[in-house]
């Protein structure tokens, strides 16, 4: 495992804290682009997804958008936007790419969250006299939150992965040691960068998994464990 000891030596060398490509700066850039892009995308996609989920209209459009978006290679889209906007506007081009990339997951998270709610719950809320807004704020939003957080989780990881590739258009970020090191055959730096990127993604995923768990309302959590237990018993008897 000589490669890995070289990579660790590169990572923990004091030089990694110096200059314009110091690791804390690269990490800061990576987080900055990720968070800004996901926030912009959420500001657009979450209200749109809620409207689709609340009214039940426009679902086909949302499905079509998410399907088509998956086929578009984000790396190619980013380079196309860099060429269209000009080399001086690389950050803007990159952020537009990340926003486009994050929208489908967030949209799906927002509207499937509302769509998955039992219709009888909504009917009951209306029956006790709640207005449309109250149904949304006090019933649909809390019940749909876990799936929305799941959508944010997917979007966040997708953007973290794409920011890594964006080092190719000189955006900085933790992909920079990898992209810059490959042509120079500096494998200690390439592997060191890869380790950092993987760690960042795994930590972000873990934090979002915890958030997703915390987003489930307490009353629902009790109900779910009971249901899952029931299902496990059913399958066990079937396979026995």
């Amino acid at each position, binding site marked *: 495992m000589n490669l*890995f000891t070289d*990579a660790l030596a590169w990572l923990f060398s004091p030089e990694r804290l110096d200059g314009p490509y110091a690791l804390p700066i690269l990490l800061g850039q990576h987080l900055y682009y990720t968070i800004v892009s996901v926030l912009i995308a959420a500001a657009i996609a979450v209200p749109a997804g809620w409207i689709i989920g609340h009214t039940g209209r426009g679902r086909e459009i*949302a*499905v079509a958008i*998410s*399907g*088509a978006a*998956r*086929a*578009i*290679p*984000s*790396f*190619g*889209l980013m*380079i*196309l936007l*860099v*060429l*269209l906007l000009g080399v001086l506007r690389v950050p803007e081009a990159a952020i537009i790419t990340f926003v486009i*990339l994050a929208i*489908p*997951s967030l949209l*799906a*998270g927002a509207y*499937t969250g509302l769509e998955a709610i039992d219709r009888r719950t909504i009917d009951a809320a209306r029956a006790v006299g709640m207005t449309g807004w109250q149904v949304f704020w006090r019933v649909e939003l809390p019940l749909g939150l876990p799936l929305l957080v799941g*959508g944010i989780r*997917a*979007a966040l*990881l*997708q953007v*973290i*992965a*794409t920011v*890594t*590739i964006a080092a*190719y*258009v000189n955006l900085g970020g933790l*992909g920079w040691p*990898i*992209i810059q090191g*490959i042509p120079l055959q500096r*494998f200690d730096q*390439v*592997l060191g*960068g*890869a*380790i950092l*990127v*993987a760690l960042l*993604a*795994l930590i972000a*995923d873990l934090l979002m998994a915890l958030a997703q768990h915390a987003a489930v309302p307490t009353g629902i959590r009790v109900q779910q464990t009971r249901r899952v237990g029931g299902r*496990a018993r*059913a*399958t*066990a*008897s*079937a*396979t026995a």
Partner: protein
Amino acid sequence: MTWVLDNLDLILALSVEHLRQSIIPIVLGLVLSLPLGWVAWRYQLVRGPIIVLTGLLYTIPSLALLILLPASLGYSATSPPNLIIALTIYAVAILVRSVADGLDSVDPAVRQSATAVGFGGARRFWTVDIPLAGPVILAGLRVTAVSTISLATVGILIGVENLGYLFTNGLQRRIIAEVFAGILAVVLIALVIDLLLVLLGRMMMPWTRATAATTTRRVIMPMRSAA
């Protein structure tokens, strides 16, 4: 536009190479996921670890995985097999879950009926379980196919040539048409393969058309196409 017409040969050659580099992981991913998904479904104890482990591999961004895998296993990073192995891992991560979920969706009463009329374990699996789990597996396979084809372009960053070459070359030479042609070719290939999978599904599972509404609902759930 003239660039595209002058370079049709190049685009075609890269598309064929791109198709080769994506179809192998899609097929290999399905072949590996069927037994793995069955194990995860049959033995609830290992289901958690299998789903968590493949989920963690799926979480690692592609560029990092393309470096970490060859470094840990000791093969060359700059060769097509490296890209194919990484894409296969992503495919397995999506498909293991689809196979296990698909087997979950089979009505236990149907399975018991099959056993009652004398179907043995293997025969029941291939002729009852797999066809009934088919729609859910197909939904996962479509997601896998489209995201694999679009993700393969990242290969150019480690020196594996496919349609991604049109992106890096187009940026260096500032030819917008070249980059655009690359995106269009990738999207077209993805749509054609997706259509073929839908048609194949209809041929193999003619009864699903009646219940199409429930399957499209499932397609949108696994969202992320790791970049």
